[in-house]
């Protein structure tokens, strides 16, 4: 069938795709690594008192929850439960949008207290911006996965598209788990 491997018997197309995605994530780690290092290099452990701690914590929780729904979506599609799969993808998209809305509020306050031209603002807007951009790409990909799912493109044995996007989403989540303390907690 079409999903069989064109490679040598040892490695399936799925293995190739997974390896490719992991390599991509490894590469992205270096991007965030550089940006995170810039924070400590330029600003040390400084953080302004005006940071909205409650908001920061809230959006972090939202994003972690979205990883949970994404995980449930992957499990559902693996078991052929299409409705649950789509429901959980929708929930993930919803939580992602809430997260982005939180970032917008965060930015409005940031512009007021520590605009991008200031030392901390430079770091804050760059890190949250770079991350929000990744969230945005993840949301677009999730939306595509949702509609492909509605067309019945993912079956129990073949759901790489969904799996890949969910893994990417987890990565974006983990990146935030490092960015959040870097911006909000260290001192």
């Amino acid at each position, binding site marked *: 069938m079409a999903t*069989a491997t*064109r*490679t*040598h018997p040892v490695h399936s197309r799925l293995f190739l795709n997974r390896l490719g995605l992991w390599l991509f994530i490894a590469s992205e780690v270096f*991007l965030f690594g550089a940006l995170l290092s810039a924070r400590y290099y330029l600003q040390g452990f400084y953080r302004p008192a005006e940071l909205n701690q409650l908001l920061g914590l809230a959006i972090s929780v939202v994003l972690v929850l979205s990883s949970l729904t994404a995980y449930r979506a992957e499990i559902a599609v693996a078991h052929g439960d299409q409705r649950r799969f789509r429901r959980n993808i929708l929930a993930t998209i919803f939580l992602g949008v809430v997260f982005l809305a939180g970032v917008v509020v965060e930015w409005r306050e940031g512009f007021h207290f520590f605009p991008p*031209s200031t030392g901390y603002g*430079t770091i804050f*807007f760059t890190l949250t911006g770079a991350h929000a951009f990744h969230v945005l790409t993840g949301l677009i990909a999730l939306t595509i996965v949702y509609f*492909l799912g509605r067309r019945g493109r993912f079956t129990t044995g073949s759901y790489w598209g969904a799996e890949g996007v969910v893994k990417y989403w987890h990565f974006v989540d983990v990146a935030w788990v490092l960015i959040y303390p870097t911006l909000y907690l260290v001192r």
Partner: protein
Amino acid sequence: MKALGGIVKGLVFAIIGFIVGGGIGFLLMNAAPTGRGTFEPVIALGYVFALIGWLLGVGLWDAWAREWVGLPAKKLEVHGWRRYFRFSTDHKVIGVQYLATFLFLFLFAGLLAMLMRLELMAPGETIMGPNTYNTVMSLHGVIMIAVAVAAIIGGLGNFALPILIGARDVAFPRVNALSFWVLPPVVILLLLTPLFGGFDTGWTGYPPLSVTNATGTLFFLLAFITFGISSILGGLNFITTVVTLRAPGMTWGRLPIFVWGVLSAAMISLTATQVVAAGLIMIVLDRVTGTSFFNAAQGGNALLYEHVFWFYSHPAVYIVILPAFGAILEIVAHFSRKPLFAYKWVVGSFLGIVAQGFLVWAHHLYTSGMSDWLHIPFMATTEVISIPTGIVFLSALGTLWLGKLWLKPPMLFSLGFIFNFLIGGVTGIFNADVPTDIHLQDTYFITAHFHYTLMGGMIFGLMAGVYYWFPKFTGRKYNETLAKIHFWWMFVMFNVTFIPMFWLGIHGMNRRIADYSPELGGVNMFVSIAAFVLGAGFLVFAFNLVYSWVRGPAAEANPWRARTLEWQTLSPPPEENFHAPPVVSDDPYGYGIPGSIHAVIGPAAGAPRQESEVKR
């Protein structure tokens, strides 16, 4: 028209993208005036959308993105020379696309070097003012760096690597096409820089100059970032390909050494490139949105950029040189008719260089004002790298030792590489040692040193590879006499041109400057004339290549009687490379071992395929 259809569509989409993105940039600019009050937000955002438009138009939409909205992808049916102008997913076509693009850029940047040498022929202003000189110098530098980073790995690597490991294509053919098609925008951006005030920072783009100068520099920054996308995707593809698509029997210990060279370089370009991208993005943000990464008045620090930049750019010299090492070791073994000496040690050295390459970057910062205590550790790590490099060198010598040398053009260039790289490597020690480097930094000694490694090394390796694989790529023979003339011309004149530059540097001639003190005039005149002769030599090369590709006599499948897999299939290889799946049974370099065969190509032609087709 049919040939250029994709390109035209790409350009149209790019213009639409630019208008959309630029419009958004314009609105944002007026809503929140930040940055330097120029039109740079329009350019930056317009470019991002233009790039997406270009890619979609040129083939990404038809070949791939249609699937994302539930439509079937279109299959491209173009044959003959036209496919070189289309979004092809065949690694052989992509290899030729890379090679042609970068050889062309190499000749263009060479012309810029001629202009520089004209200006430097005599003290005082000769043909251009200092600002023009700076732009010419920066363009020459950055284009040559791009050639150095991508010509071997993207050109020779794309074409030869899948065949060498017995695969039908790379792991992600469409990603492969993508990594080529992001390059035309890079070229266009760089060519536009002179129209927007030029860019005068040199290829390193250090702030604060790169934050405050003319808009041309923004074009350079965007070009560099885009080039980075290509490197990252290329690296990802090569690693996955080598890990997963090796033919049965092609164990890690039997991989041809060129494959190891490309694989090691791919590991670096996959990871380190993101770091330089981060640094470049910081400059773009400082210019466009008014952040202050490098604005000391707001707590910024220009040293951050130097660290981030060299965290990539030192490993990048290994992206440049490891595939070249691989190519020349490959050639030295086949043309000495001997097994590669110390194969396992070389593989270990390649991987060691990859790892160590990440630990030495601050040797570029001895005079930058970073903390003094960092000098000694970075000097030490740098000198330790000479151990694996030395092993690679010894392997080449050990392979030559008592070999039956066959002095064909590829072999001549490989021997030239070994000679030049020795000089490049030995002079590098003076740059690694703090006491000497403090004096030599930013002089022509540095210029001479890195031309010995880049041109004397990488370019000689590239030439060796081109002359080695040309019959395979094109199915035609080139003129060997012309090729040998090219070699001797280039080898002699290269050394005549660049050796005196060491002397100039020691005598105080600064790098990156259009003028120098009058007593250096004589030697500079000599260097310039030598450079013109050197430059003229490439006409022989260009003529030989173009003429032979069009008119040359047909080449046999295995003109070098070499053992590796690419020579066991047709010249040029058929679609999907082999008429049947190859099976590897022994070492690629087992010359002179009775009964040893590296690989056989499966059951006779026409036998039914064992493997089923894949849906991509």
